[in-house]
């Protein structure tokens, strides 16, 4: 009841403030638009807005980012479905079936399913978040130290290796490639310079945002350009037929399963919605009686992926608020918003600024509901992007992606990284490697390396120290079992989910 009362207070605070309402609506529409426009994403919008949040109150700044997070995760599905360009890694599995649906002239159904399932997954996740975050915050800082966080990252990586690539081994190689990229720059413990090749700008490391833009957006343009040159390019058909309610109710189990998966994955710091979407999709395939239809334009593929990734949004706020650990790129930027206002996300936020927390919670709840209302209106307009000829759309995407890559840190090397990733991604996708796996390895590698080093320092460089930390030990064992299970599956059951052909 206390949570409900706090939620009401947060709602009243949100909607009794005209500026707050304006920022809320701006965030909802901006998140959807930037998520939907090819080449840019909610991250681009967040990067652009970050300096301006210094001029907003802490409540408004953090609320804006949390709303963008909810609607941007949904918005990224649009480009995944229409152009096979995921707005973010968490929309990648949406493209597996969404893009073939577009090619079949069912874009409206796919986008409509994404709207409804994103709203549903996100709203339920927000409700659970409101009920669960405060208790977690109470024990999190004492229960979760560097050994536990490292173990979480390890566990996340072991699951992540089983998705996205054509074979388990290619999945692992993709993850390892990401981990190797993550070690470029200063080492997080001793400040040792690594793999900089006497280029000072490389000391800053390889940032994951230009890497994502390169691997997904730029490489997709190359793929489409190749088709155009070889004469196999087909302009997608246009349709705005939304799915019927009966069609969605028929997939109720897929929705529930994806909410559970999405929420659990969202709690894992540094993983969040991306792993949620992949696992939601994978489990849909595993439990379906029509496995062969996945990857060819099956509605359940879109439903599972989009429900799971939005279900992760609320959950990702738990490690952010409870531990100060960002679950992904956008939540990492939210840390910046906190710090600009002389605050640190973490349990002290609950102690020092409970009103802020509940305004943010309320905003996230209503942002997810807004997806339903605004999503349907917006979708009918956005689908018309399919009318733009490829030769005009591709340069625009490249331009926007370039701006997005440069905007992160103001470094030209990030633009170079984006184009290199685009070329490398083009060839890797042809050979069945997982570009999403590389990005996951990069993101988790940075967190994992640092927390591993801290954990070893805390445990006095004795591995046996993990035995005395039950949470860390359990996660490490679960991770090892996952690896063993996936190896067993690869050799004996062939249950590994292969990436659909059009992605390769």
């Amino acid at each position, binding site marked *: 009841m206390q949570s409900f009362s706090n939620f009401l207070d947060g709602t009243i605070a949100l909607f009794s403030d005209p500026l707050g309402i304006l920022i809320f609506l701006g965030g909802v529409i901006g998140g959807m638009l930037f998520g939907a426009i090819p080449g840019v994403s909610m991250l681009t919008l967040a990067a652009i807005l970050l300096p301006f949040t210094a001029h907003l109150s802490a409540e408004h700044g953090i609320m804006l980012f949390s709303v963008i997070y909810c609607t941007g995760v949904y918005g990224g599905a649009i480009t995944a479905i229409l152009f096979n360009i995921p707005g973010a890694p968490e929309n990648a599995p949406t493209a597996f079936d969404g893009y073939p649906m577009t090619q079949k002239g069912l874009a409206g159904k796919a986008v409509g399913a994404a709207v409804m399932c994103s709203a549903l997954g996100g709203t339920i996740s927000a409700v659970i978040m409101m009920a669960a975050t405060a208790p977690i915050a109470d024990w999190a800082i004492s229960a979760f130290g560097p050994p536990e966080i490292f173990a979480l990252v390890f566990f996340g990586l072991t699951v992540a290796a089983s998705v996205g690539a054509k074979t388990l081994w290619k999945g692992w190689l993709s993850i390892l490639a990401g981990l190797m990229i993550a070690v470029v720059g*200063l080492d997080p413990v001793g*400040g040792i310079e690594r793999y900089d090749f006497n280029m*000072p700008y490389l000391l800053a490391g390889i940032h994951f945002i230009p890497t994502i833009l390169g691997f997904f957006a730029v490489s997709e343009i190359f793929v489409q350009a190749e088709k155009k040159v070889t004469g196999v390019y087909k302009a997608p058909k246009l349709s705005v037929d939304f799915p019927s309610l009966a069609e969605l109710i028929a997939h109720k189990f897929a929705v529930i399963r994806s909410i559970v998966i999405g929420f659990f994955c969202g709690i894992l710091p540094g993983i969040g919605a991306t792993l949620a979407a992949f696992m939601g999709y994978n489990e849909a395939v595993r439990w379906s009686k029509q496995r062969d239809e996945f990857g060819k334009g099956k509605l359940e593929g879109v439903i599972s992926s989009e429900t799971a990734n939005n279900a992760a949004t609320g959950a990702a706020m738990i490690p952010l608020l409870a531990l100060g650990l960002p679950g992904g790129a956008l939540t990492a930027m939210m840390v910046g918003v906190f710090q600009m206002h002389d605050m640190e996300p973490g349990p002290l936020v609950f102690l020092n600024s409970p009103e802020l927390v509940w305004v943010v919670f309320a905003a996230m709840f209503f942002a997810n509901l807004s997806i339903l209302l605004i999503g349907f209106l917006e979708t009918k307009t956005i689908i018309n992007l399919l009318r733009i000829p490829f030769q005009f759309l591709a340069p625009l995407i490249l331009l926007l992606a370039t701006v997005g890559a440069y905007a992160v840190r103001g470094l030209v090397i990030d633009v170079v990284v984006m184009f290199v990733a685009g070329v490398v991604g083009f060839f890797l996708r042809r050979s069945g490697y997982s570009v999403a796996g590389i990005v996951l390895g990069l993101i988790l590698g940075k967190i994992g390396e640092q927390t591993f080093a801290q954990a070893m320092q805390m445990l006095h460089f004795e591995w046996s120290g993990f035995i005395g930390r039950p949470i860390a030990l359990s996660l490490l064992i679960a991770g090892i079992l996952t690896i063993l299970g996936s190896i067993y599956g690869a050799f004996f059951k062939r249950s590994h989910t292969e990436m659909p052909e059009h992605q390769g």
Partner: protein
Amino acid sequence: MNYKEYLMPVATMVVAMVVSANVAIAACATDGLPDSMEKPSGFPERALTMIVPYGPAGGSGQVAQAMAQAVTDLTGVAINRDHKPGGSGTVGMTAFMATPTDGYTVLEHIDDASSAHALDSGRPNPAEGLIPLVVSQITFSQIYIRENEDRFTDWNSFVEWVKAQDGKATIANVSKEGSMERVTMKFITDATGMKMQQISFDKGAPRYGALAGGQVDALFEQPGDVRKFLDAGKFKPILTVLKEAPAAFADVPSLKEAGLDFEPLFRFRGFYTHVGVPEDRVKWLQWAFQKAFCQKSYQDFNESKYMNLIESFRDTEGAKELITSTIKQYRDVYKEMGLEVK
């Protein structure tokens, strides 16, 4: 004696006290500088760019924002902040050195630039390879424990407890080898005979969370960065790394009171321009940045960060002396530590 004979000297004394008190309150390091200065040949006729080698959210980002605002308020000249984080300040320094020497680009940097030069003379010496416009923040470090800690309560009991742990005690610190934090901890452990495992956290939030959550036994930090934890009664300082304790921490033992004999190192942040910038432009920039230090908005900012507990201001010559002595001190320590000094 006539009461008027008493009244006169008393009144004079009261007036003198009030005047001197007002002077003391109003006095600021650059009050003597003129309130305005003519722009040399129209410089600057467009916005300045301030390169900040750290993110917008940390201590450097905040001081850059506060100083840029104060300079703009004073002169009407806009300043665009260009954050180039990464490589412990190397990326920002490299970007700055590549900009034209026309005075339109200034650099914010911290004492890391001095320690980097001390370790590798190939890196720019901030006192010679750059022109310091002003050092606007100088602060000291402290060691903190949790307020509700019951294994030790003050410096002496802490030292005793750490020694009993045989190297198992932990302290959260920043990561970089040769950093001010690491070097100071070496001074402290050498002087006391303590053995401690330093846990490397390069970001503030997890570093503070580690102490709050009991993941580590103590924390090395500057007071301004943990002020909210101090104000909230979560952390308490048990040692001030200064020869004499400042009034705000009078009950916390200083180095002298703790029997530790070494020269403390300071965290300082300042603003620089290129060597080679026309002299009249340098003079204008020096005036603008030094005068801005005494703008109310900047003074309020420094106060909120505990940057008023010791003298935080150095003009160009003072900054050069501070940097040069700091480099010498680091270089001596590095050699003593066996680090390779280039």
